């Protein structure tokens, strides 16, 4: 058994036997995914429901459009009451050839939608009744736009955040506890190179990140959450690796400064929490003010998020990896270099 393999094995065992770490690496971020996923839900896909009274070709066609759902009522007064009470955005009352539409002034968006659909249907039927060949034809086509359903940006965001947690905490706490318990000393007194120790620790972190990726994506793909991956999801793997090394370097820096595990946890949280919010983990950063978006560019998590979104749910190809990868590599090198300079074997 080589030193590299047995050190990695020792760290994996220590990791799997520590329930607290497992919780913070897997369950804790997963809780956020579940809570946000259910809270924000899939509101965009609900059809608008309106009250309907009477019958005839207008109501039949309206139902066939599939754009609105009709809730039938026996008389106009009850339907009107529903709109007055704010239960439904509009009521359509058909009596003979007369189509009357009542809509609530409060919800302009819903009103506009309903008005547009109903008048479209009425015009179409009129046209059919007049027996005139249509002069203009409408060719409608849906495109995948850049704005995403909540689960589509939550999954990459929370996954990146979880990887930043396990990367920063993993390396910082290992370093502090090994220094405090003099394991670093023991290693220094053994004929094993620092590179071996470091690479085995990084490898364990990368393995953890991949496991997190699999678990998170699997949960988000469940029908309740409804994540839809686009073609080249495997392009996320290089981002997982590079993101892990970047956050590992941050953890090394934190670990070099802190003497106790408590101090290291605190410092790691101070780094991670603002970074997570400003990097678009829980909501798209495009909604933030412009200056804040500029500020968020200094965080590696921001770039990891962008890259993850592009390859996991926006269907972009390998070209979308270029900028995030370059930023993460540069970040790893710079922070890693600083951390190596201030690294201490002993207190």
């Amino acid at each position, binding site marked *: 058994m080589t030193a590299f393999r047995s050190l990695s094995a*020792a760290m994996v*065992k220590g990791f799997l036997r520590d329930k607290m770490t497992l919780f913070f690496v897997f369950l804790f971020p997963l809780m956020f995914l579940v809570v946000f996923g259910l809270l924000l839900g899939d509101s965009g896909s609900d059809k608008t429901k309106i009250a309907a009274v009477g019958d005839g070709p207008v109501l039949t066609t309206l139902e066939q459009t599939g754009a609105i759902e009709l809730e039938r009522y026996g008389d106009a007064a009850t339907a009107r009451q529903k709109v007055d009470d704010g239960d439904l955005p509009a009521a359509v009352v058909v009596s003979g050839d007369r189509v009357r539409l009542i809509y609530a002034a409060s919800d302009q968006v819903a009103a506009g939608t309903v008005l547009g659909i109903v008048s479209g249907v009425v015009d179409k039927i009129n046209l059919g009744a007049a027996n005139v060949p249509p002069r203009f034809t409408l060719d409608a086509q849906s495109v995948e736009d850049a704005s995403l359903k909540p689960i589509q940006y939550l999954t990459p965001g929370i996954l990146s955040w979880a990887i930043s947690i396990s990367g920063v905490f993993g390396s910082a706490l290992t370093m502090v506890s090994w220094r405090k318990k003099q394991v670093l000393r*023991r290693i220094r007194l*053994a004929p094993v190179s620092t590179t071996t120790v470091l690479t085995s620790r990084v490898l364990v972190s990368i393995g953890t990140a991949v496991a997190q990726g699999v678990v998170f994506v699997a949960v988000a793909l469940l029908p309740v959450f409804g994540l839809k991956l686009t073609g080249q999801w495997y392009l996320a793997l290089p981002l997982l690796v590079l993101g892990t090394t970047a956050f590992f370097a941050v953890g090394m820096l934190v670990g070099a400064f802190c003497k106790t595990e408590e101090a290291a946890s605190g410092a790691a949280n101070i780094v991670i929490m603002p970074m997570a919010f400003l990097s678009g983990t829980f909501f798209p950063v495009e909604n933030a003010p412009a200056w804040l978006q500029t500020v968020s560019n200094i965080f590696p998590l921001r770039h990891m998020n962008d890259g993850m979104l592009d390859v996991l749910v926006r269907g972009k190809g390998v070209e979308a990896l270029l900028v995030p990868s370059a930023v993460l590599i540069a970040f790893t090198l710079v922070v890693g270099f600083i951390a190596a300079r201030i690294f201490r074997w002993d207190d």
Partner: protein
Amino acid sequence: MTGARIPAVVVSDIRKSYGDLKAVDGVSFTVAEGEFFGILGPNGAGKTTTLEIVEGLRQADGGQVTLLGEQPWPRNPKLLPRIGVQLQASSFFEKLTAREQLQTFGSLYGVSRRKADEMLELVGLTDKADVQENKLSGGQRQRLSIACALVHDPDLVFLDEPTAALDPQARRNLWDVLRAIQARGKTIVYTTHYLDEAEILCDRVAIMDRGRILAMDAPATLVRGLDAPTHVVLQKGVLTREAARGITGVEEAHEDEVSLTISTRRPAPVLSALAERGTLDGLQVRTATLEDVFLDLTGREYRA
């Protein structure tokens, strides 16, 4: 010095200051191969700093260290497989069992995994092989930590206060382990603040105080060189103070509530005189100890 081979450890005039504090102030000693060498002294005497410089963990401000013919500083990968260092009792990997700790530390030296069980047996932890390190008792952890230092079969072993904070029974168990290690032909350099223990275990000791070595020799030689009287303690009442003073060779006799203590530098005639009188019941003889040596050297009571 035993044999004509090169000494295992040669330390000459090492120094280390922290600000105004001279932690190590010109320490020199030599340890022969196979020797059990103790560095004694109260806390803060500079034992640990000395040991760390010798092990190559710390750079000295001045002086020379040679271990098995090699320089330990800067980190010398050629030397590392030949020395074993026991650090404090908690220096283990998280959540690993006793056997896994030994296997992991062993692998850093390219040692086969089977070696772990052999080491567990040596330190008497075979039945604790599958117990996680944090669930072991203090003494068991200490023994495991020594086993970790020995797993790669080093020629030279450094132990820093291996018996500190152990209960008397655990200390005695550990003495057996240390003797077993010496019997394997290892050279042992160890620090302790228990003078009685050093007297029992060590071939030679160096007594340190305030960064300097005050005396260095075999414990028996140090004690003998002290010219301190032997104390013979009798039960009170078997002999009067005056009668005791009358015995040839007795320098001083004094009495308290439970016993009569006779001081003498010639214990043989005194003991035979006491035997003639039939007053040997409950008799105790206390010769001088390393604590008396320390008192003599520093002028103050030894306090660990």
